[in-house]
Protein backbone atom coordinates (compact mmCIF):
# COMPACT_ATOMS: atom_id res chain seq x y z
CA UNK A 1 0.00 0.00 0.00
CA UNK A 2 1.17 3.44 -0.85
CA UNK A 3 2.18 5.96 1.81
CA UNK A 4 0.61 8.65 -0.32
CA UNK A 5 -2.36 9.87 1.67
CA UNK A 6 -3.55 11.93 -1.31
CA UNK A 7 -3.76 9.02 -3.72
CA UNK A 8 -7.34 8.03 -4.48
CA UNK A 9 -8.69 4.58 -5.17
CA UNK A 10 -9.75 4.11 -8.75
CA UNK A 11 -13.48 3.37 -8.86
CA UNK A 12 -15.66 2.31 -11.76
CA UNK A 13 -19.15 3.71 -12.13
CA UNK A 14 -21.31 0.61 -11.89
CA UNK A 15 -24.73 2.21 -11.80
CA UNK A 16 -26.21 5.67 -12.27
CA UNK A 17 -29.57 6.83 -10.95
CA UNK A 18 -30.97 10.16 -12.04
CA UNK A 19 -32.67 11.17 -8.83
CA UNK A 20 -33.85 14.59 -10.00
CA UNK A 21 -32.96 16.73 -13.01
CA UNK A 22 -29.75 17.80 -11.27
CA UNK A 23 -29.08 15.11 -8.66
CA UNK A 24 -27.44 11.79 -9.43
CA UNK A 25 -26.42 8.71 -7.50
CA UNK A 26 -23.39 6.72 -8.57
CA UNK A 27 -22.66 3.21 -7.46
CA UNK A 28 -18.88 2.86 -7.42
CA UNK A 29 -16.89 -0.37 -7.42
CA UNK A 30 -13.20 -0.68 -6.69
CA UNK A 31 -11.19 -1.37 -9.82
CA UNK A 32 -8.57 -3.14 -7.77
CA UNK A 33 -9.86 -6.24 -5.95
CA UNK A 34 -7.26 -5.83 -3.21
CA UNK A 35 -8.52 -2.32 -2.44
CA UNK A 36 -12.09 -3.62 -2.24
CA UNK A 37 -10.99 -6.33 0.16
CA UNK A 38 -9.25 -3.93 2.54
CA UNK A 39 -11.75 -1.11 2.42
CA UNK A 40 -14.23 -0.61 5.21
CA UNK A 41 -16.18 2.34 6.56
CA UNK A 42 -18.92 3.21 9.00
CA UNK A 43 -22.12 5.20 8.75
CA UNK A 44 -21.51 8.94 8.74
CA UNK A 45 -18.06 8.95 7.18
CA UNK A 46 -17.21 10.92 4.07
CA UNK A 47 -14.73 10.87 1.23
CA UNK A 48 -13.13 12.95 -1.48
CA UNK A 49 -14.48 12.08 -4.92
CA UNK A 50 -12.55 13.18 -7.96
CA UNK A 51 -12.71 13.56 -11.67
CA UNK A 52 -9.13 13.64 -12.90
CA UNK A 53 -8.49 17.00 -14.44
CA UNK A 54 -11.26 18.75 -12.55
CA UNK A 55 -10.43 18.11 -8.91
CA UNK A 56 -12.01 16.71 -5.79
CA UNK A 57 -15.33 17.19 -4.05
CA UNK A 58 -16.46 16.12 -0.58
CA UNK A 59 -19.56 14.00 0.08
CA UNK A 60 -20.66 11.53 2.70
CA UNK A 61 -20.81 7.93 1.60
CA UNK A 62 -24.49 7.50 0.81
CA UNK A 63 -24.68 3.71 0.92
CA UNK A 64 -24.73 1.56 4.03
CA UNK A 65 -21.69 -0.39 5.23
CA UNK A 66 -24.04 -3.38 5.44
CA UNK A 67 -24.13 -3.38 1.62
CA UNK A 68 -20.74 -4.77 0.73
CA UNK A 69 -18.63 -4.49 -2.40
CA UNK A 70 -19.47 -0.95 -3.42
CA UNK A 71 -20.08 2.56 -2.19
CA UNK A 72 -22.61 5.05 -3.44
CA UNK A 73 -22.55 8.81 -3.57
CA UNK A 74 -25.30 11.25 -4.38
CA UNK A 75 -24.50 14.73 -5.58
CA UNK A 76 -26.16 17.76 -7.07
CA UNK A 77 -24.64 19.40 -10.13
CA UNK A 78 -23.48 22.63 -8.59
CA UNK A 79 -19.80 23.35 -9.07
CA UNK A 80 -16.93 22.41 -11.32
CA UNK A 81 -16.33 18.89 -9.99
CA UNK A 82 -19.98 17.89 -9.58
CA UNK A 83 -20.73 19.08 -13.13
CA UNK A 84 -17.82 17.01 -14.40
CA UNK A 85 -19.06 14.01 -12.38
CA UNK A 86 -22.50 14.42 -13.88
CA UNK A 87 -21.00 14.19 -17.37
CA UNK A 88 -19.52 10.76 -16.66
CA UNK A 89 -21.14 7.56 -17.89
CA UNK A 90 -21.37 3.94 -16.83
CA UNK A 91 -17.93 2.34 -16.78
CA UNK A 92 -16.07 5.63 -16.40
CA UNK A 93 -13.51 6.14 -13.66
CA UNK A 94 -13.87 8.21 -10.52
CA UNK A 95 -11.22 8.72 -7.86
CA UNK A 96 -12.14 8.18 -4.24
CA UNK A 97 -10.20 8.89 -1.05
CA UNK A 98 -11.56 7.93 2.31
CA UNK A 99 -13.25 7.08 4.51
CA UNK A 100 -12.64 10.10 6.73
CA UNK A 101 -14.24 11.50 9.85
CA UNK A 102 -16.24 10.08 12.72
CA UNK A 103 -19.40 8.02 12.66
CA UNK A 104 -22.97 7.94 13.89
CA UNK A 105 -22.94 6.10 17.25
CA UNK A 106 -25.51 3.52 16.09
CA UNK A 107 -24.44 0.95 18.69
CA UNK A 108 -25.39 3.43 21.43
CA UNK A 109 -28.78 3.86 19.79
CA UNK A 110 -29.72 0.18 20.03
CA UNK A 111 -33.06 -0.35 21.75
CA UNK A 112 -34.20 3.18 20.96
CA UNK A 113 -36.64 4.76 18.52
CA UNK A 114 -35.00 6.62 15.65
CA UNK A 115 -36.41 9.77 14.11
CA UNK A 116 -34.73 10.87 10.88
CA UNK A 117 -35.49 14.39 9.63
CA UNK A 118 -34.05 15.53 6.31
CA UNK A 119 -34.57 18.39 3.93
CA UNK A 120 -33.73 18.44 0.21
CA UNK A 121 -30.24 17.29 -0.75
CA UNK A 122 -29.54 16.51 2.93
CA UNK A 123 -31.14 13.07 2.69
CA UNK A 124 -28.04 11.60 0.96
CA UNK A 125 -25.69 12.18 3.94
CA UNK A 126 -28.32 10.46 6.13
CA UNK A 127 -29.17 7.63 3.75
CA UNK A 128 -26.12 5.67 4.91
CA UNK A 129 -27.18 5.62 8.54
CA UNK A 130 -30.84 5.13 7.63
CA UNK A 131 -30.11 1.98 5.64
CA UNK A 132 -27.56 0.85 8.19
CA UNK A 133 -30.17 0.89 10.94
CA UNK A 134 -32.92 -0.55 8.69
CA UNK A 135 -30.59 -3.42 7.79
CA UNK A 136 -30.17 -4.05 11.52
CA UNK A 137 -33.87 -3.49 12.04
CA UNK A 138 -34.34 -5.79 15.02
CA UNK A 139 -31.89 -3.71 17.08
CA UNK A 140 -34.03 -0.59 16.99
CA UNK A 141 -37.58 0.21 17.95
CA UNK A 142 -39.69 2.54 15.81
CA UNK A 143 -38.00 4.11 12.81
CA UNK A 144 -39.60 7.30 11.53
CA UNK A 145 -38.38 9.28 8.55
CA UNK A 146 -39.59 12.81 7.86
CA UNK A 147 -38.33 14.00 4.51
CA UNK A 148 -39.16 17.21 2.70
CA UNK A 149 -38.14 18.85 -0.55
CA UNK A 150 -39.16 22.00 -2.37
CA UNK A 151 -41.11 20.19 -5.06
CA UNK A 152 -42.12 16.64 -5.88
CA UNK A 153 -39.46 16.46 -8.57
CA UNK A 154 -36.80 17.51 -6.03
CA UNK A 155 -37.37 14.43 -3.86
CA UNK A 156 -34.39 12.11 -4.15
CA UNK A 157 -34.36 8.30 -3.84
CA UNK A 158 -37.91 8.04 -5.20
CA UNK A 159 -37.71 4.26 -5.50
CA UNK A 160 -36.50 3.87 -1.95
CA UNK A 161 -39.17 6.20 -0.63
CA UNK A 162 -41.74 3.83 -2.14
CA UNK A 163 -39.98 0.90 -0.51
CA UNK A 164 -39.86 2.59 2.90
CA UNK A 165 -43.47 3.62 2.57
CA UNK A 166 -44.52 0.06 1.83
CA UNK A 167 -42.70 -1.40 4.83
CA UNK A 168 -44.83 -1.82 7.93
CA UNK A 169 -41.82 -1.41 10.20
CA UNK A 170 -40.92 2.07 8.91
CA UNK A 171 -43.01 5.20 9.22
CA UNK A 172 -42.27 7.56 6.33
CA UNK A 173 -43.66 11.07 6.07
CA UNK A 174 -42.80 13.01 2.94
CA UNK A 175 -43.65 16.62 2.35
CA UNK A 176 -43.14 19.28 -0.28
CA UNK A 177 -43.17 23.04 0.10
CA UNK A 178 -46.53 24.71 -0.63
CA UNK A 179 -46.79 25.04 -4.40
CA UNK A 180 -44.33 22.21 -4.95
CA UNK A 181 -47.02 19.55 -5.12
CA UNK A 182 -48.43 17.84 -8.21
CA UNK A 183 -52.12 16.89 -8.65
CA UNK A 184 -51.17 13.28 -7.83
CA UNK A 185 -49.19 14.17 -4.66
CA UNK A 186 -50.44 12.18 -1.66
CA UNK A 187 -47.88 13.30 0.90
CA UNK A 188 -47.87 16.31 3.14
CA UNK A 189 -47.72 19.88 1.92
CA UNK A 190 -45.75 22.24 4.13
CA UNK A 191 -42.29 22.93 5.46
CA UNK A 192 -40.46 20.24 7.43
CA UNK A 193 -40.71 21.95 10.86
CA UNK A 194 -44.48 22.41 10.50
CA UNK A 195 -45.00 18.84 9.35
CA UNK A 196 -42.85 17.59 12.22
CA UNK A 197 -44.94 19.55 14.68
CA UNK A 198 -48.10 18.06 13.18
CA UNK A 199 -46.76 14.49 13.26
CA UNK A 200 -45.42 15.13 16.78
CA UNK A 201 -43.30 12.01 17.29
CA UNK A 202 -42.60 11.16 20.91
CA UNK A 203 -39.20 12.05 22.32
CA UNK A 204 -39.45 9.17 24.78
CA UNK A 205 -36.42 6.87 24.31
CA UNK A 206 -35.88 8.46 20.89
CA UNK A 207 -32.84 9.73 19.03
CA UNK A 208 -33.42 12.45 16.42
CA UNK A 209 -31.07 12.68 13.47
CA UNK A 210 -31.44 15.94 11.62
CA UNK A 211 -29.89 17.21 8.43
CA UNK A 212 -30.89 19.98 6.10
CA UNK A 213 -30.29 23.53 4.99
CA UNK A 214 -29.52 26.00 7.82
CA UNK A 215 -32.99 27.56 7.62
CA UNK A 216 -34.64 24.16 8.11
CA UNK A 217 -32.39 23.35 11.07
CA UNK A 218 -33.12 26.75 12.59
CA UNK A 219 -36.89 26.20 12.59
CA UNK A 220 -36.82 22.47 13.34
CA UNK A 221 -34.77 22.74 16.52
CA UNK A 222 -37.47 24.61 18.51
CA UNK A 223 -40.00 21.95 17.44
CA UNK A 224 -37.73 19.17 18.67
CA UNK A 225 -37.22 21.03 21.95
CA UNK A 226 -40.98 21.43 22.28
CA UNK A 227 -41.39 17.69 21.72
CA UNK A 228 -39.02 17.16 24.63
CA UNK A 229 -35.84 16.08 22.86
CA UNK A 230 -32.66 16.66 24.83
CA UNK A 231 -29.65 18.25 23.10
CA UNK A 232 -27.59 15.10 23.55
CA UNK A 233 -30.24 13.01 21.77
CA UNK A 234 -30.20 15.11 18.60
CA UNK A 235 -27.53 14.43 15.99
CA UNK A 236 -26.55 16.10 12.76
CA UNK A 237 -23.80 15.94 10.20
CA UNK A 238 -21.98 19.18 9.36
CA UNK A 239 -20.44 20.18 6.10
CA UNK A 240 -17.71 22.70 5.53
CA UNK A 241 -15.48 23.19 2.55
CA UNK A 242 -12.60 20.73 2.66
CA UNK A 243 -9.58 19.86 0.59
CA UNK A 244 -7.56 17.22 2.43
CA UNK A 245 -10.11 15.48 4.65
CA UNK A 246 -7.64 14.78 7.47
CA UNK A 247 -6.96 17.95 9.40
CA UNK A 248 -4.12 19.60 7.49
CA UNK A 249 -5.38 21.91 4.76
CA UNK A 250 -6.90 24.27 7.34
CA UNK A 251 -10.34 25.27 6.06
CA UNK A 252 -13.10 23.14 7.60
CA UNK A 253 -12.51 24.05 11.24
CA UNK A 254 -15.29 25.52 13.34
CA UNK A 255 -13.29 27.18 16.07
CA UNK A 256 -10.83 24.56 17.27
CA UNK A 257 -13.00 21.71 16.02
CA UNK A 258 -12.16 20.14 12.67
CA UNK A 259 -15.26 18.98 10.84
CA UNK A 260 -13.07 16.46 9.02
CA UNK A 261 -11.52 14.91 12.14
CA UNK A 262 -13.88 15.60 15.03
CA UNK A 263 -16.95 15.43 12.81
CA UNK A 264 -18.78 15.39 10.50
CA UNK A 265 -21.23 13.85 13.01
CA UNK A 266 -22.03 16.02 16.02
CA UNK A 267 -24.67 15.91 18.71
CA UNK A 268 -26.61 19.11 19.23
CA UNK A 269 -25.01 19.28 22.66
CA UNK A 270 -21.63 19.56 20.94
CA UNK A 271 -22.92 22.02 18.33
CA UNK A 272 -24.19 24.40 20.99
CA UNK A 273 -20.70 25.09 22.29
CA UNK A 274 -19.23 25.64 18.83
CA UNK A 275 -18.68 29.19 17.64
CA UNK A 276 -20.86 30.24 14.73
CA UNK A 277 -18.51 29.35 11.93
CA UNK A 278 -20.34 26.78 9.84
Amino acid at each position, binding site marked *: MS*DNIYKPYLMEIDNIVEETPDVRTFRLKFKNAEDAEKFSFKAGQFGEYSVFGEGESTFCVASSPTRKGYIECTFRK*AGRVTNALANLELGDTVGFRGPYGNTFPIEEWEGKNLLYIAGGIALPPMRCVIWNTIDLREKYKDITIVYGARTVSDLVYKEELKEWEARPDIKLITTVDPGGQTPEWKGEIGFVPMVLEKVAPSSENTIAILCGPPVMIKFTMPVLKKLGFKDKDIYTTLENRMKCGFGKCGRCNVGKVFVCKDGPVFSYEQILILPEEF
Partner: protein
Amino acid sequence: METTRKLIRKQSLEKLYNKLTADRKVYAPVTAADKQVEYKYNPGFADVTFDHIRSTLSVKNVVFPKVENLFFYTNSRTESTISEIDLNKIPEVVLWGAHPCDTSALDTLRSIFCWDITDEFFLKRLEKLTVIGLSCHQSDQYCFCTSTGLSPNSSKGSDILLSGLQNGDYHADILTEKGKNIVNSSPELFEVISDGKEIIAEVKQKFSHEKVTEKLAGAFEHPFWVANSLRCIGCGACAYVCPTCACFDIQDETKGNNGKRYRSWDSCGFSLFTLHTSGHNPREVQSQRWRQRIMHKFSYMPERNKSLGCVGCGRCSSGCPVDMNIAEQLEALQNI
Protein backbone atom coordinates in the same frame (compact mmCIF):
# COMPACT_ATOMS: atom_id res chain seq x y z
CA MET B 1 22.20 13.81 22.18
CA GLU B 2 24.34 16.02 24.34
CA THR B 3 25.26 19.29 22.70
CA THR B 4 28.92 19.88 22.05
CA ARG B 5 30.38 23.25 21.19
CA LYS B 6 33.22 23.72 18.75
CA LEU B 7 34.82 26.66 17.04
CA ILE B 8 34.81 27.24 13.32
CA ARG B 9 37.03 29.96 11.88
CA LYS B 10 35.65 32.47 9.43
CA GLN B 11 37.85 31.11 6.63
CA SER B 12 36.85 27.52 7.45
CA LEU B 13 33.18 28.29 6.87
CA GLU B 14 33.82 28.69 3.15
CA LYS B 15 35.62 25.35 3.05
CA LEU B 16 32.73 23.69 4.86
CA TYR B 17 30.21 25.30 2.52
CA ASN B 18 32.10 24.25 -0.59
CA LYS B 19 32.45 20.75 0.69
CA LEU B 20 28.71 20.52 1.34
CA THR B 21 27.76 21.94 -2.06
CA ALA B 22 30.12 19.49 -3.76
CA ASP B 23 27.99 16.49 -2.94
CA ARG B 24 24.54 17.75 -2.07
CA LYS B 25 22.11 20.59 -2.43
CA VAL B 26 22.57 23.49 -0.08
CA TYR B 27 19.73 25.95 0.36
CA ALA B 28 21.32 29.24 1.35
CA PRO B 29 20.34 32.92 1.58
CA VAL B 30 21.58 35.43 -0.98
CA THR B 31 20.90 39.12 -1.41
CA ALA B 32 19.24 39.87 -4.72
CA ALA B 33 19.79 43.05 -6.74
CA ASP B 34 16.73 44.64 -5.15
CA LYS B 35 18.24 44.00 -1.69
CA GLN B 36 15.61 41.36 -0.99
CA VAL B 37 17.06 38.25 0.58
CA GLU B 38 16.04 34.94 -0.93
CA TYR B 39 17.10 31.33 -0.48
CA LYS B 40 18.67 29.57 -3.44
CA TYR B 41 20.13 26.16 -4.10
CA ASN B 42 23.92 26.09 -4.18
CA PRO B 43 24.76 29.76 -4.71
CA GLY B 44 28.49 30.59 -4.74
CA PHE B 45 29.84 31.17 -1.24
CA ALA B 46 30.69 34.78 -2.06
CA ASP B 47 27.01 35.46 -2.64
CA VAL B 48 25.80 33.87 0.59
CA THR B 49 24.71 36.46 3.10
CA PHE B 50 25.39 36.27 6.82
CA ASP B 51 23.90 39.65 7.59
CA HIS B 52 20.24 39.31 6.75
CA ILE B 53 17.66 39.98 9.41
CA ARG B 54 14.98 38.03 7.55
CA SER B 55 14.63 36.68 4.04
CA THR B 56 11.56 37.87 2.15
CA LEU B 57 10.06 34.38 2.05
CA SER B 58 10.70 31.96 4.87
CA VAL B 59 12.57 28.71 4.34
CA LYS B 60 9.44 26.54 4.50
CA ASN B 61 9.63 25.99 0.75
CA VAL B 62 12.40 23.47 1.43
CA VAL B 63 10.04 21.08 3.25
CA PHE B 64 6.66 22.37 2.04
CA PRO B 65 7.18 23.58 -1.54
CA LYS B 66 4.94 26.31 -2.91
CA VAL B 67 3.67 23.73 -5.35
CA GLU B 68 4.09 20.02 -4.67
CA ASN B 69 2.98 17.34 -7.11
CA LEU B 70 1.01 14.63 -5.32
CA PHE B 71 0.78 12.19 -8.25
CA PHE B 72 0.44 12.08 -12.00
CA TYR B 73 -2.47 10.61 -13.89
CA THR B 74 -3.49 9.66 -17.34
CA ASN B 75 -7.15 9.91 -18.01
CA SER B 76 -9.03 8.93 -21.11
CA ARG B 77 -12.60 7.79 -21.53
CA THR B 78 -11.55 4.16 -21.32
CA GLU B 79 -8.53 4.14 -19.05
CA SER B 80 -7.35 5.99 -15.96
CA THR B 81 -4.06 5.32 -14.27
CA ILE B 82 -2.14 6.95 -11.45
CA SER B 83 1.61 7.08 -11.32
CA GLU B 84 3.18 7.85 -8.03
CA ILE B 85 6.05 10.10 -7.12
CA ASP B 86 9.01 8.24 -5.67
CA LEU B 87 9.57 9.97 -2.37
CA ASN B 88 12.82 8.09 -1.90
CA LYS B 89 14.23 10.24 -4.67
CA ILE B 90 13.89 13.38 -2.58
CA PRO B 91 17.49 14.58 -2.34
CA GLU B 92 19.54 15.31 0.76
CA VAL B 93 19.47 19.03 1.38
CA VAL B 94 21.40 21.23 3.76
CA LEU B 95 19.60 24.33 4.92
CA TRP B 96 22.33 26.87 5.52
CA GLY B 97 22.26 30.01 7.61
CA ALA B 98 18.59 29.97 8.62
CA HIS B 99 17.76 32.01 11.67
CA PRO B 100 16.24 30.41 14.79
CA CYS B 101 12.71 31.61 13.99
CA ASP B 102 12.83 29.76 10.68
CA THR B 103 14.46 26.61 12.02
CA SER B 104 11.93 26.45 14.87
CA ALA B 105 9.17 26.80 12.32
CA LEU B 106 10.20 23.45 10.82
CA ASP B 107 9.13 21.89 14.11
CA THR B 108 5.86 23.78 14.00
CA LEU B 109 5.18 22.51 10.49
CA ARG B 110 5.89 18.99 11.68
CA SER B 111 3.23 19.41 14.35
CA ILE B 112 0.71 20.03 11.56
CA PHE B 113 1.84 17.60 8.87
CA CYS B 114 2.44 14.76 11.31
CA TRP B 115 -0.66 15.41 13.42
CA ASP B 116 -2.89 12.34 13.52
CA ILE B 117 -1.87 10.99 10.12
CA THR B 118 1.55 11.55 8.64
CA ASP B 119 2.08 13.46 5.45
CA GLU B 120 5.01 11.62 3.87
CA PHE B 121 5.69 14.38 1.35
CA PHE B 122 6.56 16.69 4.20
CA LEU B 123 8.20 14.15 6.48
CA LYS B 124 10.52 12.72 3.80
CA ARG B 125 11.73 16.21 2.96
CA LEU B 126 12.31 16.97 6.62
CA GLU B 127 14.15 13.69 7.16
CA LYS B 128 16.45 14.47 4.23
CA LEU B 129 17.14 17.94 5.59
CA THR B 130 20.13 18.93 7.69
CA VAL B 131 19.81 22.34 9.25
CA ILE B 132 22.73 24.63 9.92
CA GLY B 133 21.14 27.48 11.81
CA LEU B 134 22.63 30.90 12.37
CA SER B 135 21.96 32.94 15.50
CA CYS B 136 20.84 36.49 14.86
CA HIS B 137 23.39 39.20 15.54
CA GLN B 138 20.92 41.92 14.66
CA SER B 139 17.19 42.46 14.79
CA ASP B 140 14.69 45.12 13.80
CA GLN B 141 11.41 46.55 15.03
CA TYR B 142 9.42 43.69 13.49
CA CYS B 143 11.22 40.89 15.37
CA PHE B 144 9.36 39.30 18.29
CA CYS B 145 10.75 35.78 18.68
CA THR B 146 11.15 36.29 22.42
CA SER B 147 7.39 36.79 22.69
CA THR B 148 6.80 33.32 21.23
CA GLY B 149 9.08 31.46 23.62
CA LEU B 150 12.11 31.54 21.32
CA SER B 151 15.24 33.65 21.18
CA PRO B 152 17.74 34.99 18.63
CA ASN B 153 20.03 32.05 19.45
CA SER B 154 17.42 29.37 20.00
CA SER B 155 18.67 26.02 18.72
CA LYS B 156 15.22 24.52 18.08
CA GLY B 157 15.10 22.87 14.68
CA SER B 158 18.85 23.17 14.04
CA ASP B 159 21.30 20.29 13.71
CA ILE B 160 24.21 22.69 14.05
CA LEU B 161 23.74 26.24 15.30
CA LEU B 162 26.35 28.82 14.34
CA SER B 163 26.73 31.92 16.50
CA GLY B 164 29.03 34.70 15.36
CA LEU B 165 31.82 35.91 17.61
CA GLN B 166 33.27 39.40 17.90
CA ASN B 167 36.45 38.34 16.08
CA GLY B 168 34.50 37.02 13.08
CA ASP B 169 34.74 33.33 13.97
CA TYR B 170 31.75 31.20 14.92
CA HIS B 171 30.70 28.92 17.70
CA ALA B 172 29.21 25.75 16.31
CA ASP B 173 26.80 23.98 18.64
CA ILE B 174 26.43 20.42 17.44
CA LEU B 175 22.96 19.37 18.43
CA THR B 176 21.99 16.18 16.64
CA GLU B 177 23.36 13.08 14.91
CA LYS B 178 22.86 14.81 11.57
CA GLY B 179 24.95 17.71 12.82
CA LYS B 180 27.59 15.35 14.09
CA ASN B 181 27.81 13.69 10.68
CA ILE B 182 28.66 17.01 9.09
CA VAL B 183 31.37 17.68 11.66
CA ASN B 184 32.73 14.16 11.25
CA SER B 185 32.99 14.60 7.50
CA SER B 186 35.24 17.64 7.96
CA PRO B 187 36.77 17.31 11.45
CA GLU B 188 39.73 19.48 10.49
CA LEU B 189 37.48 22.53 10.15
CA PHE B 190 36.16 22.37 13.70
CA GLU B 191 38.44 23.36 16.54
CA VAL B 192 38.32 23.03 20.25
CA ILE B 193 36.52 25.94 21.78
CA SER B 194 38.53 28.99 22.78
CA ASP B 195 37.38 32.15 24.47
CA GLY B 196 35.16 34.35 22.38
CA LYS B 197 32.16 36.54 22.92
CA GLU B 198 29.08 35.80 20.84
CA ILE B 199 27.25 38.73 19.33
CA ILE B 200 23.56 37.99 19.82
CA ALA B 201 20.81 40.41 18.89
CA GLU B 202 18.51 41.77 21.53
CA VAL B 203 14.82 41.25 20.95
CA LYS B 204 12.52 42.85 23.44
CA GLN B 205 9.57 40.79 24.59
CA LYS B 206 6.35 42.46 23.44
CA PHE B 207 3.70 40.13 24.79
CA SER B 208 3.24 36.87 26.64
CA HIS B 209 1.98 34.19 24.29
CA GLU B 210 0.55 32.25 27.25
CA LYS B 211 -1.52 35.27 28.17
CA VAL B 212 -2.66 35.70 24.56
CA THR B 213 -3.71 32.05 24.38
CA GLU B 214 -5.61 32.42 27.62
CA LYS B 215 -7.40 35.57 26.39
CA LEU B 216 -8.32 34.06 23.04
CA ALA B 217 -10.30 31.26 24.68
CA GLY B 218 -13.09 33.75 25.37
CA ALA B 219 -12.51 36.29 22.62
CA PHE B 220 -14.32 34.78 19.62
CA GLU B 221 -17.14 37.33 19.65
CA HIS B 222 -15.00 40.27 20.79
CA PRO B 223 -15.27 43.55 18.79
CA PHE B 224 -11.47 43.49 18.62
CA TRP B 225 -11.54 41.51 15.36
CA VAL B 226 -13.59 43.98 13.38
CA ALA B 227 -11.76 46.98 14.79
CA ASN B 228 -8.36 45.52 14.02
CA SER B 229 -9.00 44.12 10.57
CA LEU B 230 -10.72 47.05 8.87
CA ARG B 231 -7.49 47.77 7.02
CA CYS B 232 -6.97 44.21 5.87
CA ILE B 233 -7.34 43.83 2.11
CA GLY B 234 -7.21 40.04 2.21
CA CYS B 235 -4.19 39.80 -0.07
CA GLY B 236 -2.81 36.74 1.71
CA ALA B 237 0.78 38.04 1.70
CA CYS B 238 1.10 37.30 5.44
CA ALA B 239 0.43 33.62 4.83
CA TYR B 240 2.82 33.35 1.90
CA VAL B 241 5.76 34.86 3.79
CA CYS B 242 4.91 33.02 7.03
CA PRO B 243 7.26 30.19 8.02
CA THR B 244 4.53 28.25 9.83
CA CYS B 245 1.43 28.78 7.66
CA ALA B 246 0.66 25.35 6.24
CA CYS B 247 -2.82 25.71 4.78
CA PHE B 248 -2.96 24.44 1.24
CA ASP B 249 -5.17 23.95 -1.78
CA ILE B 250 -5.37 20.84 -3.97
CA GLN B 251 -5.85 21.27 -7.71
CA ASP B 252 -5.56 19.31 -10.95
CA GLU B 253 -3.74 20.40 -14.06
CA THR B 254 -4.25 18.51 -17.29
CA LYS B 255 -2.75 18.59 -20.77
CA GLY B 256 -4.48 16.25 -23.17
CA ASN B 257 -4.88 12.92 -21.38
CA ASN B 258 -2.07 13.55 -18.91
CA GLY B 259 -2.07 15.59 -15.80
CA LYS B 260 -1.07 15.99 -12.23
CA ARG B 261 -2.72 16.66 -8.93
CA TYR B 262 -0.76 19.09 -6.81
CA ARG B 263 -1.08 21.05 -3.65
CA SER B 264 -0.11 24.66 -3.33
CA TRP B 265 0.12 27.27 -0.60
CA ASP B 266 -3.17 28.86 0.26
CA SER B 267 -4.34 31.49 2.73
CA CYS B 268 -7.18 31.70 5.23
CA GLY B 269 -7.26 35.42 4.35
CA PHE B 270 -8.97 34.70 1.01
CA SER B 271 -12.77 34.68 0.91
CA LEU B 272 -12.71 31.74 -1.50
CA PHE B 273 -10.86 29.65 1.07
CA THR B 274 -14.03 28.55 2.88
CA LEU B 275 -16.71 29.43 0.32
CA HIS B 276 -19.27 26.65 -0.13
CA THR B 277 -20.63 25.83 -3.58
CA SER B 278 -24.05 26.94 -2.33
CA GLY B 279 -22.71 30.47 -1.86
CA HIS B 280 -22.72 30.14 1.92
CA ASN B 281 -19.43 31.18 3.51
CA PRO B 282 -18.68 30.42 7.17
CA ARG B 283 -16.04 33.19 7.15
CA GLU B 284 -17.61 35.65 4.80
CA VAL B 285 -16.05 38.90 6.02
CA GLN B 286 -12.42 39.82 6.50
CA SER B 287 -12.66 40.19 10.28
CA GLN B 288 -13.71 36.55 10.59
CA ARG B 289 -10.75 35.54 8.48
CA TRP B 290 -8.34 37.68 10.49
CA ARG B 291 -9.73 36.12 13.66
CA GLN B 292 -9.17 32.67 12.19
CA ARG B 293 -5.55 33.52 11.46
CA ILE B 294 -4.81 34.66 15.02
CA MET B 295 -6.99 32.02 16.69
CA HIS B 296 -5.44 29.20 14.67
CA LYS B 297 -1.90 30.17 15.56
CA PHE B 298 -2.35 31.21 19.18
CA SER B 299 -5.35 29.23 20.40
CA TYR B 300 -6.25 26.20 18.26
CA MET B 301 -2.72 25.02 17.52
CA PRO B 302 -1.45 25.14 21.11
CA GLU B 303 -4.42 22.98 22.09
CA ARG B 304 -4.69 20.62 19.13
CA ASN B 305 -1.16 20.43 17.73
CA LYS B 306 0.67 21.13 21.00
CA SER B 307 2.69 23.89 19.39
CA LEU B 308 2.37 27.62 19.02
CA GLY B 309 1.68 28.56 15.40
CA CYS B 310 3.99 31.58 15.40
CA VAL B 311 7.74 31.98 15.76
CA GLY B 312 7.90 35.78 15.84
CA CYS B 313 9.86 36.29 12.61
CA GLY B 314 7.92 39.48 11.86
CA ARG B 315 7.51 38.80 8.13
CA CYS B 316 3.73 39.16 8.13
CA SER B 317 4.09 42.64 9.61
CA SER B 318 7.09 43.83 7.62
CA GLY B 319 5.51 42.51 4.42
CA CYS B 320 1.96 43.72 5.01
CA PRO B 321 0.95 46.26 2.35
CA VAL B 322 -1.43 48.00 4.77
CA ASP B 323 0.96 47.89 7.72
CA MET B 324 -0.95 45.60 10.05
CA ASN B 325 1.40 44.66 12.83
CA ILE B 326 0.65 41.31 14.44
CA ALA B 327 2.89 41.87 17.47
CA GLU B 328 1.18 45.17 18.25
CA GLN B 329 -2.21 43.49 17.91
CA LEU B 330 -1.24 40.61 20.18
CA GLU B 331 0.13 43.07 22.69
CA ALA B 332 -3.25 44.80 22.67
CA LEU B 333 -5.09 41.48 22.74
CA GLN B 334 -3.58 40.34 26.00
CA ASN B 335 -5.16 43.37 27.64
CA ILE B 336 -8.68 43.22 26.22
